């Protein structure tokens, strides 16, 4: 089937590639399982905690005073809030742009390459077990209505689902809230009881954000919470002992 549209590939190969493209287009920030404001918020909160804990390690090593440490935390959290909010919004828009472009490409294909689109659709439905006359009948019904065909191609060929994504600004607001709450909790904790307060706030933030995201994604709660806490603990713990080792060596 050596046409330009298929680029020398069979209809099935083409459909598989198109579906992979669809999945990539639908994917979001690395590290979040389901894109959206809840994922952006909970992920933002956890990242903020880790960043502030690492900053605290630096403060301990540099011997910063209580006031200086607090100020650095506040300044860093502010900059981090702007970055995470802006980045979340941009990633949402970027995804929307990709989705719209794919929709436009598909519409163009339907209008200009009807024969090849029919072949793609046929390959899809043949893979679902339709054969012979029945397959031809299904093709005729689907090809008859342009809008329905576009929806079918978007969902079946590209593996995309319509009406599931939030607006990028809504997602960004989620990220902003997550970072803000985590930063306020950690700074308040440090203000109240120095390192102990910071660790307690970090613990509560990770626990709560893991709980919310696990609940939203219907993952195992206990497992999600313990793994997230353990990953945070191991990252800070290993950084701490590495710093200690560098101290022994006299490098810091």
């Amino acid at each position: 089937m050596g046409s330009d549209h298929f680029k020398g590939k069979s209809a099935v190969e083409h459909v598989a590639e198109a579906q992979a493209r669809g999945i990539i287009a639908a994917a979001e920030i690395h590290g979040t399982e389901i894109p959206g404001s809840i994922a952006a918020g909970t992920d933002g909160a956890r990242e903020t905690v880790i960043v502030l804990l690492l900053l605290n390690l630096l403060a301990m090593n540099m011997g910063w005073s209580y006031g200086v440490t607090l100020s650095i935390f506040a300044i860093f959290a502010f900059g981090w809030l702007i970055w995470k909010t802006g980045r979340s919004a941009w990633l949402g828009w970027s995804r929307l742009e990709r989705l719209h472009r794919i929709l436009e490409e598909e519409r163009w294909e339907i209008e200009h390459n009807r024969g090849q689109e029919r072949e793609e659709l046929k390959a899809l439905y043949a893979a679902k077990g339709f054969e012979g006359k029945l397959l031809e009948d299904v093709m005729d019904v689907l090809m008859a209505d342009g809008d329905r065909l576009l929806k079918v191609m978007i969902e079946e060929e590209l593996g995309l689902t319509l009406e599931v994504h939030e607006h990028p600004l809504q997602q960004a607001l989620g990220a902003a809230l997550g970072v803000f709450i985590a930063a306020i909790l950690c700074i308040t904790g440090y203000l109240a009881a120095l390192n102990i307060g910071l660790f307690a706030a970090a613990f509560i933030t990770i626990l709560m954000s893991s709980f919310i995201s696990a609940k939203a994604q219907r993952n195992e709660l206990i497992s999600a919470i313990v793994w997230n806490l353990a990953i945070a603990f191991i990252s800070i713990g290993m950084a701490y002992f590495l710093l200690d080792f560098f101290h022994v060596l006299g490098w810091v």
Partner: protein
Amino acid sequence: MSETITLARPSNLKPSLIFEEFFGLGQEASVSPFLIPDSRRWAANLTLKASIFAAGLLVLSFTLSFFPLTAPISFLFLILVYFLAGIPALIESIEDLASFDINIDILMTLAAFSSVLIGSSMEGALLLVLFALSGSIEDSVTARAKGSINSLHKLSPTKASVIDESGNLIDRSVKDISIGTIILVRAGEVVPLDGEVIAGISSVNLVHLTGESLPVMKKTGDEVAAGALNTEGSLTLKVIRTSADSTLSRIIQLVTQAQEARPQLQRWFDKFSRAYALTIIGLSAFFALTFSYFLGLPFLGFEGSVYRAVAFLIAASPCALIIALPIAYLSAVSACARQGILLKGGVVLDALAQCKTIAFDKTGTLTTGQLTCAEVKEIGKATLSEPEKDVVAVAYALERNAVHPIARAVTDYAKAKNVESKEVQDFKSIPGYGIEATIEWKGKQAYVFMGHPDYIKDKLTNQENELLQTEVEALQQEGSLIAVLLIDKKLFLFAFQDTLRPQLSDTFDKLRALGKWKLLMLTGDHAASAQRIAELLGLDEYYANLRPENKLDHVTRLSQTEGLVMVGDGINDAPALARATAGICMGKVGSGTAIDAADVVLLHDNLEKLDWLMLKAVQTQAIVKQNLFIAIGAIIIASVPALAGLVPLWLAVVMHEGGTVLVGLNALRLLK
């Protein structure tokens, strides 16, 4: 729709398989349909790999802890050990606690993590690593058990070719096919549903169902079981049972029930561990809370009641029990592996040692399932009227190009007798039924027939038929399979018998000499054939003509009353192998399901090692008992002085681990 729908022949590839496997194995990542096939191997034995990696890190951490310069790196590795080995245990413990299930896992996790609080994180990490290692081995054994059901599902086709009223073929899911539906089973296909043949003749192979490797002829009116492989012609079947009631489904149910009914030992251990864990945790909490009041100790600090309670908790953690027993079992398991005997877990040895009876399947287990030609007879004559060489030469000429086991037996027999083949013309073969051809006989061309007695029937007079029937029945009573050769109105009978596995007589003599076990045979074969084998091997008892359900009844009764080792190979043995106190399966000839359902696999079908294995099991049980005694002693010796504050924690741990080393060394004796 009145138009004919042309459907392609069903593909051998079953896309549903990946889903069946995925759900059958409890949604394991190693078979996740969402992962690239190549990357699924990352998930294989992940817990075991993580445990081994954690063990390596612990060794590194321990070594580096002796040097002040590398002490921080030692802690860095120690955190990783806690992460890899501790977090899965912690999650499991919290989940158990959430469902109010206090068990030994919680005790171990609590002891390991609380050891950090009193500055003994290295000992805690050791507990976690040992615990993770034993847990991951248990996981892989469980996965194997689940695999048995999965391999059964793999055997059963998910769809069938239905012949509709217009004679068209339509593929339908077996779940949607009702009784009375007509289906077509082509050569090379597995029979999807139990049915009665309404058209066609073919041989079906029941090796996956019964271990019987000899093809069985099926003709109009015969019943064919789902799971049988159609080897030659096409068969048109009328479905007589739905997929839920098919023979294969019933076997799947039996295996599932048998596996669920099995782990008595496990249940006992769970019960014991729950009581032990509750006692130790309760006592630790009691000591922590009351010692400061009763003994006037401070609450915290190295002399405090909490410190002593945690020391008691760690010393009483069943480290020796957990590690010392696996060492004993692993030593015995590796000794068996060197002999070509694969044991699925150490507890199998306990199970073997408990048994007072050993039961054997016949075909494929005591016998090889290969036919040998026992004799050539002429109907109605005491001796052959023609030279045997000439008769065999004709049979050899007909059968030499066939792959049927009877053909192979004829060929072997002819070669052994140095018989030369003859030239064949007008050759015609009816699958599963017989062969006919023109062959030179006594200087002229004769049309000869060879095959099933029914195949020759039409060519004989009534009197000849009666005579044939009588002789065939007499030979069948002796457990022989029969082929009839008709040459120029002369009828010859070829009797074939299953071959007994070599060297078995010696093994049975040794087993009898030890006098510990009753030996019996459970078989689905004819009584006469069973009797012949039982007498040859000197078995104490035998039960013949058993269906899988009957076999399972015997096995259940014997397992419950006196403890039973079941030795088998076919799918029909799988429920019995799973239900028996210990199941032993042939590795080479055994079906995948039987191998999965069994506890022991004889990799090279080396049944002659059975006496060695049984003795090894008895020896292992003795050493395990000694080890239990030492391990419990070590716990008492370490925990009581720690509680009384007579010894510091490090010494309690050393005494505790000393006991572990002692039982380890004792267990290594089993390696021989």
